[in-house]
């Protein structure tokens, strides 16, 4: 007997002794449907998967000492995937740039009550099978198929896996956190120049259940906890508006920093805003710059990370920047970029991109994408690309989306490291060498994967928030505002000259084709030979016309 079969038998004997849990309910109903759809279906189903994401979420948000919202909620969301045809060609084949979407997020019973769950599974399986069949029949005859450049299969072959850990419970005291967000948000009210502000906490316990027709059954989970501080202000002179944020992430609320640390962050945000609204507007500039560790992390995620997601290499509509660069040098040779979802903690911080199994039931693993500057591989889901027929555990999605290759924990490793003070010295040397009046230091940036809730900020975009001019004559760094990075600075990456010796962690939530997924980037500060910035386009905004309301008895 093979080991897989032994495991199957073991599971069967245990099942008789206890009530069915969600994983076994899913597995049994999947087999019942798959047996018929694979034997009698026309077209035949060759693969099926059910995935359920269970979330227990507590949240509280406040502004100026007043609660905005709070509550604890549980949800269970089901996704059904059916593939007809074969690994070589199935209903998921992208034709004419069209991205097939069969998933629909379905709420299912929060209790492990078999009847409503299996009835819903069956109804949605039928819907998914019909949608799969319709599309497969339609594309099979499409002329464009024959012209495809990339001859790789539509679905990889992977081994079945079994894993189960008991689901955790959310530990979150709603009343404690309501008090806390009220208390901390009240601090912003002391700062007259801050027009909008908010303090929020979100704590989530997530459990994922995944079964497929190949025999994979996994049940795993983790926690997320995040405190977000946001504050906004408007420059009185020209109405330019600013929004700054700070986040603290951990696996569990008990691992979040103390109130004292958070209150200090509030004061820093308010002070930064105060200086920003009085700072001069940036002039157009091309020249050397340092990006802080956190800013570098965002850069690498947005500018580099999205370009090595596997599905983009097969897609005519994408830039396909690196598709033909495997084995070539795409970064300076002292840099390596590794994606590793198996790492839970780095540089003293819990990492958002930690997981044990991806959303296709493939075990997570360390993936060195760039080694000593040379591109080795891409982030792969079970959708193969030419030269890479297998998944490397990066097939990820939010409920209701189809999985594609997505980032996890991004690590930048450098063999040309130095203390930050030396990096600054190198910057100034470079400024002089290039004959520039000053260099730039990007302290804080935001991107398509940060948490300011900026709708419409795409992936690939990096927005500078706190930027300084660094003068070669020793005068203090000067804050500037209204900075826009010109174009997508992919070229900047080739001009990375050195890095600092300390890495910083940026935890975020990345939004792309398959929805929001938690990610992180761990990077040192980097010195770049050339970055181009310009002034943000003028808007019609003006500061508020009336002064802010004042309530005498409530002066904070």
């Amino acid at each position, binding site marked *: 007997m093979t080991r897989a079969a032994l495991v199957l038998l073991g599971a069967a004997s245990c099942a008789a002794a206890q009530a069915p849990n969600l994983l076994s309910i899913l597995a049994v109903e999947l087999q019942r449907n798959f047996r*018929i759809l694979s034997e009698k279906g026309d077209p035949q189903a060759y693969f099926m998967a059910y995935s359920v994401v269970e979330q227990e979420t507590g949240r509280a948000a406040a502004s100026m000492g007043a609660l905005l*919202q709070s509550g604890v*909620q549980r949800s269970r969301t089901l996704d059904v995937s059916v593939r007809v045809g074969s690994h070589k060609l199935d209903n998921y084949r992208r034709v004419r740039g069209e991205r097939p979407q069969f998933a629909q997020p379905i709420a299912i019973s*929060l209790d492990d009550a078999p*009847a*409503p769950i299996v*009835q819903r599974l069956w109804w949605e399986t039928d819907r998914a099978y019909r949608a799969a069949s319709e599309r497969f029949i339609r594309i099979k005859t499409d002329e464009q198929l024959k012209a495809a450049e990339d001859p790789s299969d539509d679905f990889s072959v992977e081994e079945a896996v079994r894993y189960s850990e008991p689901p955790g419970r959310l530990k979150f005291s709603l009343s404690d956190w309501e008090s806390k967000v009220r208390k901390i948000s009240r601090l912003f009210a002391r700062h007259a120049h801050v027009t909008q502000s908010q303090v929020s906490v979100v704590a989530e316990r997530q459990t994922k259940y995944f079964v497929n027709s190949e025999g994979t059954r996994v049940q795993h989970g983790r926690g997320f906890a995040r405190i977000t501080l946001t504050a906004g202000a408007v420059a009185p002179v020209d109405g330019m508006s600013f929004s700054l944020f700070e986040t603290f992430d951990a696996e569990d609320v008990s691992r979040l920093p103390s109130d004292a640390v958070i209150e200090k962050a509030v004061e820093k945000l308010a002070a930064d805003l105060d200086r920003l609204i009085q700072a001069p507007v940036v002039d157009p500039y091309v020249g050397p710059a340092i990006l802080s560790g956190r800013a570098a992390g965002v850069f690498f995620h947005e500018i580099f990370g999205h370009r090595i997601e596997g599905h983009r290499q097969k897609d005519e509509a994408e830039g396909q920047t690196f598709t033909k660069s495997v084995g070539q040098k795409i970064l300076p040779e002292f840099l390596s970029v590794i994606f590793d979802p198996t790492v839970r903690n780095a540089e003293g911080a819990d990492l958002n991109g930690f997981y044990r199994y991806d959303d296709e039931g493939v075990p997570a693993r360390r993936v060195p994408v760039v080694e000593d500057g040379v591109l080795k591989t891409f982030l792969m889901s079970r959708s193969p690309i030419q030269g890479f027929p297998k998944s490397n555990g990066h097939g990820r999605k939010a409920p209701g989306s189809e999985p594609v290759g997505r980032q996890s924990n991004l690590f930048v490793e450098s063999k040309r490291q130095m203390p930050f003070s030396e990096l600054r010295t190198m910057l100034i040397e470079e400024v002089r060498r290039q004959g520039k009046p000053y260099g730039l230091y990007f302290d804080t940036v935001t991107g398509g994967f940060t948490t300011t809730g900026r709708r419409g900020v795409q992936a690939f975009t990096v927005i500078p928030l706190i930027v300084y001019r660094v003068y070669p004559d020793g005068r203090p760094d000067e804050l500037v505002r209204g900075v826009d990075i010109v174009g997508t600075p992919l070229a900047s990456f080739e001009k990375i000259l050195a890095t600092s010796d300390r890495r910083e962690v940026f935890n975020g939530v990345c939004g792309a084709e398959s929805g929001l997924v938690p990610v992180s980037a761990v990077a040192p500060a980097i010195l770049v030979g050339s970055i181009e910035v310009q002034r943000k386009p003028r808007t019609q905004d003006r500061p508020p016309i009336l002064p*802010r309301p004042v309530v005498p008895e409530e002066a904070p």
Partner: protein
Amino acid sequence: MKLLLRSLLASILALLLYPAQAKDDVLLRAASEELERAKKLQFPALAAPYYIEYAVDDALSFSLAASLGGIVTLRTNRFRVPRIQVRVGTPALDNTNFVLSDTISGSLPVDDHLLALRHSFWLATDTAYKNAVEVFARKRAAITNFVNPERLDDFSRAAPTVKVLPAGFRKVDESRWVSRIRAVSAVFAAYPKVLTSSVELEIGQSYAYMVNSEGSKLRLPDHLSHIRIRAAGLAGDGSVVRDAALFQAADPESLPGESELRAAAVRVAENVTALAAAEPGADYTGPVLFEATAAAQLLAQLLGRNLAIPRAPVSFPGRPAPVLESELDGRLHSRILPEHITVVDDPTLKEWKGRPLLGHYEVDLEGVVPGPLRVVDRGVLEAYLLTRQPVRGGGPSNGRARLPGAFGAKAALISNLIVTSSQPAPAAEMKKRLLDLAQKRKLDYGLLIRKLDFPSTASLDELRRLSASLAKAGSARAVSAPLLVYRVHPDGREEPVRNLRFKDLSVRVLRDIVAVSGDPQLFDFVNSTAPMALVGGANYVAGSAVVAPSMLFEELQLERPKEQLPKPPLVPPPPLAALK
């Protein structure tokens, strides 16, 4: 009587727990104080606002859904939704009724924190004023440069109203509701032909606040709770068959108790089972008898949505703003119903034959106090439902602004629509007259309709198919499909048929009513601006009621949909009885 007493007691107790006299109401105070300051809003060299309105829905919602004994969603939500409106210009011409007109919303703190609340109002008003100024400029440019519909004033006059009623949220016994809804949902497990089912509950407590620059000040209870029992199955040809039982009330204690809900679930299950086995209906042209509920549902759609006259906003090329027209536009003082029928819309009525009327309200969203309105007098259309948005054929508001609307206006809805006849026929005779008419036309049967899909519980797929076929037929609006239809044979036997749709049903058919019964029934429902009052189709809802008798139509057309149906599922449904 008992129910009312119980809820009255509960209200008194609740008020003791949550005192909220007007002067202690921090939200009201924040809105009033900030509104006073906002009157001084002005860009240099530009006009100050001539009207400012702050509205807030202060709400607590408990919602719950279950299927076959499992809880699917469970949620408590406390929220305050503001709607800020600033008007610049004059009542004759302002920044509303333009394709870019909007109302500023967002969220307010739920704590009674005066400074934080005023801060939110301050920022929202600033944005609203700046938007109003810009939109006003663009509207004037559009009027000057492009052809636009006839000029009507933008805002009519109305006297301000001050009405601050007691407020306070009642505690909800969540576990009692959970076990009750769970138990009702489990009823469907015994019906193998029911392939999907759900029972949903929402207990909505809400207070509608409004202050405006004319001196209106309102705080009014606006509670609405509902229970929805829905089920669907598949007929042999792959058609979806479904039924629903919807219950609504202002006071959740007035909702049916568990045994009544179980009985309703059993009826829905039996209807779905019968429909799954029933013959599909054939194309039909002939007499149709609408029993009272179905008649009320028909009038709620044909009269309800056509009594509000929509107004096309000022627009410009590249920004079409199509507005669904009312079939009663331009038909004031013409006969739309038989002469023996009179229809009155009366929000002042609180109950009918001992049952609470869901359409009752005291003041509308614009502060106008409504009175009874005779919309149809002996068959002749005499009045429209009017808000402060002037419309063709209408005058000043008659207090029907019940929901936020589009382009800066409010939407009018029916309240309690009471249909009476001076020539009722005996109820027992209606079926006989149906058969007589059928026989005269040499038809084998007449059609009897007991229930329409209204408010509609159709799925997105069904709606898509419906609107696709409507577009082909060229008609703009559909009346929802009948759910319970029966062929009545000459021997009196009733045979259910399924999956029929109305063809070409418009307000014009109302003139063909040949008889109405003498036993009117009450039908109440959760109303909204969504087509067919689609359940879950709109953010804002309000209660309405129709009191109507059964109605016999001489000739209506029903048709069998000709679209391609999906094939029945390959995999048989799971055997639920085997599961524990």
